[in-house]
């Protein structure tokens, strides 16, 4: 198979499996994750999620954007075999907050918000200071996201993935009741 075609199939498959798993995972660990260096952080899905199922001309999408946190329609989608195609993710370390929307098929980040960088310039400031602070915060966000993705992908290609899917199914059933 052509590498690009293969990549397209794999991107969608891995991306959707990841975001779908992430919903479950972040719920059962209460959003507590850790980087490889042991830095603890919070990561959770926010109240805007798209789920999709079917293929070709029969793709069904349900997008839920609920300030109340009522995700029942998106959950209903999961129960009928849909997967997460887009999710709003929040990350926190102490008072620092990041927020971004991630697309499953290509992992582009839209509406990425980092903790605030003071934009006022004062005399004697390094002219690149703001940029360096901002890019540090952007790369931090990426590093946190990647830490969780690495945890997922290792599990995804391991024999333990089956167990993880069983746990996912129990979680999904438990919400029903």
């Amino acid at each position, binding site marked *: 198979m052509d590498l690009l075609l*293969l*990549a397209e199939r*794999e*991107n969608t*498959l*891995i*991306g*959707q*499996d*990841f975001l*779908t*798993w992430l919903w479950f995972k972040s719920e059962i660990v209460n959003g507590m994750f850790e980087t490889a260096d042991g830095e603890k952080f919070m990561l959770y899905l926010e109240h805007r999620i798209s789920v999709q199922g079917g293929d070709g001309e029969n793709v069904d999408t349900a997008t839920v954007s609920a300030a109340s946190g009522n995700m029942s329609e998106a959950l209903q989608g*999961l*129960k*009928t*075999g849909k*997967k997460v195609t887009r999710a709003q993710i929040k990350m926190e370390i102490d008072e620092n907050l990041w927020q971004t929307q991630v*697309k*499953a*098929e*290509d*992992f*582009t*980040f*839209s*509406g*990425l*918000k980092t903790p*605030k*960088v003071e*934009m006022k310039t004062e005399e004697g400031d390094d*002219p*690149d200071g*703001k*940029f*360096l602070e*901002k*890019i540090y915060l*952007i*790369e931090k966000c*990426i590093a946190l996201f*990647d830490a969780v*993705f*690495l945890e997922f*992908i*290792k599990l*995804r*290609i391991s024999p333990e*993935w089956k167990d993880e*899917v069983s746990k*996912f*199914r129990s979680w*999904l059933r438990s919400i029903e009741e």
Partner: protein
Amino acid sequence: MPILSASVGLTRYRVVEEVPDSLIREIPELLSKFAFKDIDHTAEERSFGWVNFDDMLDDKWSVSPPEKGQYFTFSLRLDTRRIQPAVLKKHLQIALNHEMAEAKKEGKNFISRDRKREIKDQVTLKLRARSLPIPAVFDVVWNVPENRLYLATTNAKIMDMFEEYFDNTFQLNLEPLTPFFLAMDKLGEEAVQKLESLDPTIFVG
């Protein structure tokens, strides 16, 4: 889109090839060589190229250098002339009416298809020369030591344009860090086969 804005769209890349030190030293020069060329005083439909990250009017990097810490920063500027379809339609109609009046004087009752196309091209060109190009800027940050590159957009057309122009400028190929490529990057070559043969998970059952 400026990376420094409060909310930004971001696409990540890695450079496929090893980047030699000699090329890294050449980055500022190559940026100037492939800098944006202004089309304000022409009738060109569009123009794109690199400009200073700190100032989109600076195509000579006189305001500041592209280096910031360990990063190279620059922006892809794209200027496009757009003619409103309704404006084109009106002026095309005027030109065609005029042409028809001329034709009638010569006893003809039609305008050939080729002539119509010619008139449309002329009208388009005339309108373009009268409209100002609309500028758009997409920031690029290249973290050379970490082999990471960020483009401040998620627009697929801009991404394509950027990837191609980056390749033209630096003779380097970019790989977008989509889920599959990111997984390969994180797990290394030995995982490729496993990643290629995954079946989609069935989460319900």
